[in-house]
């Protein structure tokens, strides 16, 4: 009797990359910023990060298992990523319930209500952050000085510039290593760039969105500051720009999937963020810029899809 073999259509081999590999890589890439956050903001930061992750994962599990009655996919690490990113966007002085509410909202409403992984049209962490900002503005902007010992309230560099406070700006070195006020995960440029380099090296994200984003901010700031090279460079390292450009704007499902669209998306983020920073009512425009571009993303994608091979040049 001849043996019968399995039949399926080609290709018969698949790459080793899986959803959980990708998400785990993102978690690994967020670790340097996690350490930096805990180093500068102390134990409260760690507690908030853990609570946020815990709440995100628990929400994902409950919604999938009991409400949508499907297989829970918490093992794919994507809820962990959302939990970490949300905590990164919150000051370390925030009350514990704030992150719990925020990450539950991110997962249940922004992610799962729209169909789960890959179907959210906004970055869940950023949408949740915007919701928290609108509901609890005081808790969301209670900055602390970054010294471990003295927890005095202190303005962020963006606050100083935006509100024209008569406080000396932190040095360039301090803003690069993260020794300034701000949200838990956004202050240390060095830590974020280490993680970003890892993600690019692993092929998880492409450089297109972050490069277009950061490049645009730099060029616009150069004009807006009256060709002040120092300030336009300084402007790149403060606020949530680095975290936003590398970790939030690159969210797969809320950004275009084709290369040209990604560049347009990045430029759009850069324009909105810089305009808000220099002329808007808020000191920071990174998260709003990404959220707005998230909404525009399907449209961009539609009109930026490349011509087919052998098709007419567009």
């Amino acid at each position, binding site marked *: 009797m001849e*043996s019968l073999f399995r039949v399926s259509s080609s290709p018969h081999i698949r790459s080793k990359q899986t959803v959980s590999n990708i998400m785990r890589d993102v978690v690994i890439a967020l670790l340097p910023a996690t350490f930096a956050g805990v180093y500068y903001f102390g134990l409260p930061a760690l507690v908030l990060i853990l609570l946020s992750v815990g709440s995100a994962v628990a929400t994902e599990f409950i919604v999938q298992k009991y409400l949508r009655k499907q297989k829970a996919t918490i093992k794919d690490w994507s809820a962990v990523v959302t939990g970490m990113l949300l905590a990164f966007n919150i000051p370390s002085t925030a009350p514990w319930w704030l992150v719990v509410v925020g990450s539950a909202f991110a997962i249940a409403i922004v992610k799962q209500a729209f169909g789960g992984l890959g179907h959210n049209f906004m970055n869940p962490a950023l949408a949740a952050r915007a919701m928290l900002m609108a509901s609890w503005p005081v808790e969301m902007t209670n900055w602390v000085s970054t010294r471990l010992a003295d927890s005095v309230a202190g303005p962020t560099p963006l606050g100083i510039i935006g509100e024209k406070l008569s406080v000396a700006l932190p040095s360039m070195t301090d803003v690069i290593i993260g020794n300034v006020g701000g949200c838990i995960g956004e202050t240390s440029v060095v830590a974020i760039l280490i993680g970003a380099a890892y993600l690019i090296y692993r092929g998880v994200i492409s450089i297109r969105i972050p490069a277009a984003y950061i490049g645009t901010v730099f060029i616009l700031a150069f004009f807006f500051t009256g060709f002040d090279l120092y300030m336009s460079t300084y402007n790149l390292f403060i606020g949530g720009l680095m975290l936003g450009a590398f970790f939030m704007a690159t969210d797969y499902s809320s950004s275009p999937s084709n290369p040209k669209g990604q560049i347009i998306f990045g430029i759009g983020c850069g324009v909105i963020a810089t305009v808000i920073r220099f002329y808007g009512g808020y000191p920071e425009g990174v998260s709003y810029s990404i959220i707005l571009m998230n909404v525009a993303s399907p449209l961009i994608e539609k009109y930026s899809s490349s011509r087919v091979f052998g098709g007419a040049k567009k």
Partner: protein
Amino acid sequence: MSLLSFKGGIHPPHEKKYTEKKAVVKAVDPKVVTISMRQHIGAPCNPIVKKGDYVKVGQMVGEATSFVSSPVHSSVSGTVKEVTNKNVLGGKAMCVVIESDGENLIHETVVSNGDISGLSSKEILEIIKNAGIVGMGGAGFPTHVKLSPPPEKKIDVVILNGAECEPYLTADHRLMLETPAEVVYGLRALIKVLNVQKGYIGIENNKPDAFKSISEAAKEYPEIEVVELYTKYPQGAEKQLIYACTKREVPSAGLPMDAGAVVSNVATSAAIANAIKTGMPLVERICTITGSSVVEPKNMLIKVGTNIKEIIDQCGGYKGKVGKLIMGGPMMGLASNTDNIPSTKTTSGILIFNEDEAKIPEAENCLKCGKCVSICPSFLEPLYISAYALKNDFEKAEKYNALDCIECGSCSFVCPSKRPLLHSIRVAKKEIIAKRRKSK
């Protein structure tokens, strides 16, 4: 020299090390051959022998039934046992079963045609047609058809595909190493048939030894340029190869001749050389037998019509539990549910996977990561074509240019969510084509 390439593409593991250093060995002569009348796309052949007939090597046993068809010949001498429907790859087909007498007597029609220099381009074309030569790298498209473009298409270049970009396969690699002169000779014949000034042979840079031997064999012929291609899948796909060599894009929905090019495979070229020099039609070919579930991977010269199981037995048989049997490479090859089928002119590889490798991964949600978009060599958006195909919205799939898909499988390969992208795109293509036929 800089490496030539195309945009997009993937880097699957090469997996060629099992056989790339192994010289081609001749398979044991089969006692029985089963010669399928369906060796290629195009019309199947008509058997012209009947039970009890005595046939010799090189004798025609199936005649072409239309222009897009190509005759088939016996690969042994012996008696026709039956002419009947039998299992072949992908279904049933009319087959001529011949019991070999072990003599390998050569048929009277098989006589040398002399040298290219003494032949007109018409005569060479006739030789190619009568020798049953088809594209040996892929679907087996009859070569004489490619060589007869309508007069309004101006062809100015012939390209030989020596990329062998499919993982695992090393048949073309060994051929280029062991008989480079034949490859070059065949290309010169093609150049003459098409009356062009330029011929390329493209070889991926993971085969530097083949590049060297072919370059050596081609060095007296200024009209032939041997080019090194960047190792990337699907470098050997017609349109991508034309782009790599000439920077010309075959227009969407067009054929290579629309870009002034004809592409053939190195093995086909060697078969042409053989048909001219010895008069022997295409009755045997080199095949790579490899994979984790075969005892001793090999490159073998096998006669058309040899039972696949017999070939595998000559490689020490199966190792462990077999999961999948693939005819061709892992990216574009066809899986067969049985090993009781005959080899054909297009059997470039027999790939045997173990149970683990044969597992079909479970698909997850599309992440919209865009990886399939950035690697598609046809610049498509596989995620959307596939999504619409799965929703049976074939009109939308058509709008997203489903018909431009070359079925290379790169998108399914890279997808981290393991979505069956190409599979669903194929469904869409079938539906779209069926609809177009109907509305005509």
